[in-house]
């Protein structure tokens, strides 16, 4: 891991001798020449990302069912959505899932990074094992999880019984379904958080710790007042990435609970899927996307804002 700091360190040294100035002494403003680099991407993004957005907005104001006609209905879909209790519930489920699905992996992943940062026998191998869930294909693993959750015959209840804990109904109970789904999400994505934070730990300077030891600080103090502040930017990144992915979570919920029991784990994504690909209500489903999109835009602006802030603090 010695090469980790290379990209940041090398160019600064090389670049030192010469300053980029115009003959008049003013710094060059090259920024206008660089947009060319983004042109190919802009074309592709325009076609596969921006076009769908615009088209979705168009569809959201139509009454459009697959196999039927198209009628302009203005805001009617949105009005119906606002009155749709199932949609409101779906928003709460999404929030519940996202909060748990962000907080737990970030805390656990940070703890795991602290553990894997230390030297111990078989560290490389064990770290690989720990990271494996991140690569597993969610659909495939989710199907296996579902079977493990079987309340009568699942292996998880058996393992619990070995340590004297009574059986749980896991995803087969409206009250435990979301936490259980989060459990799978945690299993999947804690490794990514761990990797990011581990990267941060690798770049930490040694000096503050040395002087802290001289000052007689204990382990907790060093963690609380040295490690944590230095790691904060990395934890922030992990937080952002997790928020994005938890909000997008679809596969595992779709495969394991299909939004059930009843509607107990129906998140916005599942609701959207039902409207679009079970009931084929394209207009209504598009209205869901537009609202979701609004939330996403608001959230990304917020994230960019916090990112700027954390950058200053770091």
């Amino acid at each position, binding site marked *: 891991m010695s090469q980790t700091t290379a990209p940041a360190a090398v160019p600064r040294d090389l670049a030192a001798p010469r300053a980029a100035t115009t003959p008049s002494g003013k710094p060059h403003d090259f920024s206008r020449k660089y947009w060319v680099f983004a042109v190919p991407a802009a074309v592709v993004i325009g076609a596969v990302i921006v076009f769908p957005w615009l088209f979705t907005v168009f569809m959201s104001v139509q009454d459009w069912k697959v196999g039927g006609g198209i009628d302009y209905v203005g805001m009617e879909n949105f009005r119906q959505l606002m009155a749709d209790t199932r949609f409101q519930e779906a928003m709460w489920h999404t929030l519940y899932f996202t909060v748990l699905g962000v907080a737990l992996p970030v805390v656990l992943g940070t703890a795991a990074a602290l553990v894997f940062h230390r030297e111990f026998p078989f560290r490389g191998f064990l770290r690989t094992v720990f990271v494996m869930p991140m690569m597993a294909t969610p659909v495939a693993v989710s199907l296996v999880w579902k079977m493990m959750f079987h309340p009568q015959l699942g292996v998880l209840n058996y393992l619990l019984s070995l340590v004297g804990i009574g059986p749980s*109904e896991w995803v*087969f109970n409206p009250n435990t379904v979301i936490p259980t789904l989060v459990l799978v999400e945690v299993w999947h994505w804690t490794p990514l958080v761990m990797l990011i934070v581990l990267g941060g730990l690798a770049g930490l300077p040694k000096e503050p710790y040395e002087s802290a030891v001289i000052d007689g600080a204990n382990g907790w103090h060093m963690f609380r007042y040295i490690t944590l502040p230095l790691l904060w930017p990395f934890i922030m990144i992990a937080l952002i990435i997790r928020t994005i992915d938890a909000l997008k979570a679809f596969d595992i919920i779709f495969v394991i609970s299909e939004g*059930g029991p009843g*509607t107990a784990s129906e998140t916005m994504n599942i609701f959207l899927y039902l409207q679009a690909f079970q009931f084929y209500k394209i207009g209504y489903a598009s209205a869901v996307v537009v609202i979701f999109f609004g939330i996403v835009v608001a959230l990304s602006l917020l994230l960019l804002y916090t990112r700027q802030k954390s950058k200053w603090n770091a």
Partner: protein
Amino acid sequence: MAKLIGDLSRRDLLKSTALVAAGAVAAPAIVSRANAQSKFDWKRYKGEKIDVMLVKTPRGDLLQQHEKEFTELTGIEVSSEQIPEQQQRQKAMIEFTSGRPTFDVCMLALHVQKRLSYKGKWTDDLRPLINNPEMTNPDFDVADFGEAGMNFATQADGVINTLPHFVDFWMLYYNKELFAAKGVEYPKSMDEIITAASKLNDPSKGVYGFVSRGLKNANIPVWTSWLLGQGLETIDPKTGKLNTDGPEAVWAGEFYRKLNKEFAPPGTIGFNWNECQTSFMQGRAAMWLDGIGFATPLEDPTKSKVVGKVGYGITPPGPKAHHSAIFADGLGIAQMSKKKGPAWYYIQWATNKENQLRMLKAGAGAPARQSPFKNPEGTQSKTFAKDYFDCMAGSGKIGRPGLPQIIPVTEFRDIFGVALTNTLSGADVAAELKKATETFKPVLEKSEQG
């Protein structure tokens, strides 16, 4: 008819002799010869190739296993695939409406897609083909298809846009060993299911009295099975009136809730057929209400612990009537297909007497034809006891559709499925059904407008 059946068994007899003597080559040859004098020519579309989309089931397996036989008979190449039910329905919907389906023959779930397929002009009317002696093998015998299946395949105006392939009857699986251990008799009425379940229920041993689907959508047939005991379908087939929040529906809902809450394994609220099947197969549930098509793995020693102990009971009579909820799959020709002739040949072959008999013999469910049941070979099985076939035959006589014959079946199953699930977590049955009925009414009205 008698002559035809005679023909069939003679042919089968010949076939099995040939099998023993010289391998499996004889059968198609004999079929070809049998039709030598008619105008019908199996080889008319020799060299063509068709695409077939099936649902992933033991029946799909059977058709695929014997595809070669069709190719030998007709010279038509088949490229078929089986897709799981839920995605297959989605694919059918998407591809039919796109106007460019990638298949020529499609299997449809008639209990869900009957009206939808007709309204969307998915598949061709088969009557002109059936009545054309040049196109239809004289041995085909349409009259042999049972009433239950044919009703599913026939639209209100008489158009037959699929041919039924398989009919599923809902019935009650019971574990004879558990019943004997507690000295319980097979319930003679719906109310007796409850008394039996309470005697058989033994949670301390991990054995439960009764199991059935709780998962939304999937749970609807359980409820409609009970409702049929009141002599009602969820939507009256003649008047189109919703029977979903009346006293009968509430009774059925209460019945559903009682069984699934008091005598079922924990977590049934999220059970689909496969969790129920797993519980029953491991001897952990004494009774299981579901389709008879799910029986095959129960008698497979590599999958099941209850081999030879399974009883197959007809759904017991309810307070007012005695019915079995039925479902059906059919095969149709895509209207946009460019190979309708070969496609029709495939359907003829897939639903012929021999293949339907195979289905019954393999325990892959109840065929849509009647002849397999009359054929002694069909009901003599090493895997299945007599009550399996009796249950099919008996259920067939009292069958009524387990889902309403409307266009928005998916919405119906979703809305009422959620309502039923809610009752399992404590909500009031009458209130939930009333709310669901109000939600569903406008959806239904809109769909009937056009």
